[in-house]
C-alpha cells in the first residue's frame, strides 16, 4: 500500500483493526475522540464489537471481561479518563489478561486542559492502580511509529499475558502525517488461549477462572513472585530505545514522543553552532532503557531530560545515570509545546538547568 495521510487518532484505530482487534470499549474524551469514532463505524462494519460504555470505569471492566474471554480487546482514553481506569487496569494485570490501552495525554492535573502533554508518565509507568504490577508501555514519537506499535501490541500482550499501554500526547493524536500501514511487525510464537473463559464445553474437565483474589498471603506472595519473574523477562526482551548522534557528544538529551522529535531539530540547530548533542530516545518507558546510559562517554558534560511535564521521566534518568553525569531538566507543561529553539537555549545554558 502506498503512503496515506492520516490523523494520529484514526491511524491508531486502523492499526488496531490491522492488529486484529475483536472488540473496543470506550468513553468519549478529548483529545482521543477520533479513535472511538473511527472504530464505531469500521469495527462494526467488519462484524466486530464496538460499544460506547457509560463511563471509563465501565469500559475498562468490559475490557477485562472480553480479555478474560480470550478476545483481542482495547480501550482508549485521555489523562483523566485513564485515571478512572486504573482500578480495572490493576485487576487486569493481576489476572494476567492481555489487552491494549491507548492513552492520548492532555495537560493536568485535575480536569486540566486538552492540549498536548506528557504529564502522565508516572501514571503510565508507576501505575495509579494498587499493588506491584507493570504495564508494557510504548511511547512512540510519530504516527508511523504509533501504527507499527499498535499493530504489534496485541501479539505482545498475548505473548506475555499482560496489558500493553501505548502512550502518546495530544499532538500525535490530532496531527496528520504520511504513513504506511504495511510495515512488518515482529512475529511471535503465540500459544492458544487455553485459559480463556469460554465455557467448559470448549475445554472439558477444566474450569477457567479470571481472578485477582488470593486471600492466602503465601499464595499471593507466590503470585507476586511469578509476576516479577515475567516483568524481568519483559525487561530483558522488550526494552526498546534509539541512540542518536552518540559519538562523543558534548551533551546528551533524553526525550520521548513529540519532545524527542522537537529535540531532533534542536540537535541539528546545535550542530550548526558547533555543539555536539546526542540523544537517548526511550521507545519503551516501561521497561526503561537504563543500559543505554552506559554508552554516554565520561567526557560528556551533561544530560538534559526534556519532557512536556514538570519532570517525571527525570526520576528514571537520575536512576539510570546513577550519579555519573550532571543531569539537567527542561520541561513545558499544561499543553505548551516548545519550539526547538527553546531546547537549543536549554543546552546552551545547561548550567542553569542542572538539577543534580
Amino acid at each position, binding site marked *: 500500500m502506498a*503512503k496515506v*495521510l492520516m490523523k494520529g487518532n484514526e491511524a491508531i484505530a486502523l492499526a488496531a483493526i490491522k492488529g486484529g482487534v475483536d472488540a473496543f470499549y470506550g468513553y468519549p474524551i478529548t*483529545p482521543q475522540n477520533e479513535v472511538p469514532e473511527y472504530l464505531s463505524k469500521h469495527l462494526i462494519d467488519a462484524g466486530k464489537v464496538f460499544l460506547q460504555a457509560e463511563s471509563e470505569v465501565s469500559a475498562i471492566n468490559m475490557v477485562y471481561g472480553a480479555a478474560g474471554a480470550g478476545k483481542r480487546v482495547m480501550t482508549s482514553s485521555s489523562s483523566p479518563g485513564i485515571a478512572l481506569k486504573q482500578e480495572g487496569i490493576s485487576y487486569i494485570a493481576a489476572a494476567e489478561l492481555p489487552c491494549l490501552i491507548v492513552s492520548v495525554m492532555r495537560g493536568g492535573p485535575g480536569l486540566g486542559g486538552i492540549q498536548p502533554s506528557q504529564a502522565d508518565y508516572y501514571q503510565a509507568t508507576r501505575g495509579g492502580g494498587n499493588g506491584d504490577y507493570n504495564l508494557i508501555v510504548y511511547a512512540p514519537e510519530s504516527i508511523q511509529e504509533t501504527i507499527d506499535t499498535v499493530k504489534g501490541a496485541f501479539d505482545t500482550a498475548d505473548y506475555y499475558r499482560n496489558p500493553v499501554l501505548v502512550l502518546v500526547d495530544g499532538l500525535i493524536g*490530532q*496531527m*496528520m502525517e*504520511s504513513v504506511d500501514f504495511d510495515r512488518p511487525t515482529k512475529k511471535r510464537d503465540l500459544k492458544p488461549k487455553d485459559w480463556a473463559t469460554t465455557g467448559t464445553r470448549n475445554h472439558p474437565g477444566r474450569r477457567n477462572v479470571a481472578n485477582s483474589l488470593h486471600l492466602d498471603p503465601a499464595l499471593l506472595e507466590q503470585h507476586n513472585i511469578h509476576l516479577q519473574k515475567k516483568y524481568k523477562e519483559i525487561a530483558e526482551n522488550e526494552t526498546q530505545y534509539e541512540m542518536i548522534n552518540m559519538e562523543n557528544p558534548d551533551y546528551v538529551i533524553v526525550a520521548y514522543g513529540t519532545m524527542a522529535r*522537537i529535540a531532533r*531539530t534542536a540537535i541539528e540547530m546545535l550542530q550548526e553552532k558547533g555543539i555536539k548533542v546526542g540523544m537517548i530516545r526511550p521507545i519503551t518507558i516501561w521497561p526503561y532503557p537504563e543500559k543505554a546510559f552506559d554508552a554516554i562517554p565520561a567526557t560528556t558534560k551533561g544530560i538534559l531530560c526534556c519532557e512536556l511535564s514538570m519532570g517525571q521521566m527525570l526520576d528514571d534518568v537520575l536512576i539510570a545515570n546513577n550519579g555519573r553525569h550532571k543531569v539537567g531538566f527542561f520541561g513545558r507543561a499544561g499543553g505548551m509545546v*516548545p519550539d526547538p529553539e527553546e531546547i537549543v537555549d536549554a543546552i546552551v545554558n545547561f548550567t542553569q538547568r542542572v538539577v543534580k
Partner: protein
Amino acid sequence: MRDAVNIKVAGFGGQGVMMFGQILAYSATKDNINGLWFPSYGPETRGGTANCSVIVSEKQINSPVFKNANHLVIFNSPSLDKFRNNVAPEGLILYNSSLISCEVTEEDRLCVGVPINDIALELGNAKVANMVMMGAYLQLTKLFSDETIHAIIKKILGERKADLLDVNFKALEAGKDFIKKQGIVYA
C-alpha cells in the same frame, strides 16, 4: 526543495484554512514525500481564529512544531498581527488583500497580497476564495504540480460535490493568473 518547508495557515473559522493546509499535506503524501499537518484544536477554533501548521519535506520530518514559518498564508487581519513576526528570513507572507487593505511589508520577506474574496465573487462562488489563495500560493512556491493538486481536490470533493470541481479549478487558475500578471517570482 529544501529539507523541510514550514507553512503556517491562519484565518477565521469557515474560511477554509484547515482545508488549505490539509491539501498541502495530502499533496506531499501523493508525491511520495512526507507531509505533516496539525490544527490548533479545541473550543477556541469554533467561530474564532483558526490556524494550522504544515510541514512538507523530502526527508524525515523531525519537530512537528516550528518557531518561524517559511511560508505564512493569512486569510484575515487578526491572524496577520498574530503571526507576521514569526516568518523566517527570505520567507513568504501571502495575504488576503480583500480583508487586509493596507500594504504589508516586512524586511527580507516577500509580501504578496491577493484579493481572494473579490476574485472568488467574480467567479460566482464566495466559498472558493481559499482555492484562489492556493493557486497564488502554488504559482509562487511551485511546491506541487497542477496534476497533484487537481487529484487531491477531486478526491476531497468526492462524487457528492463533483459539480463544484470546475469552479474550484477555475479558482486555482485565477489565483495563478493574478500572480503571473503581477510578474512576481519567488521560487
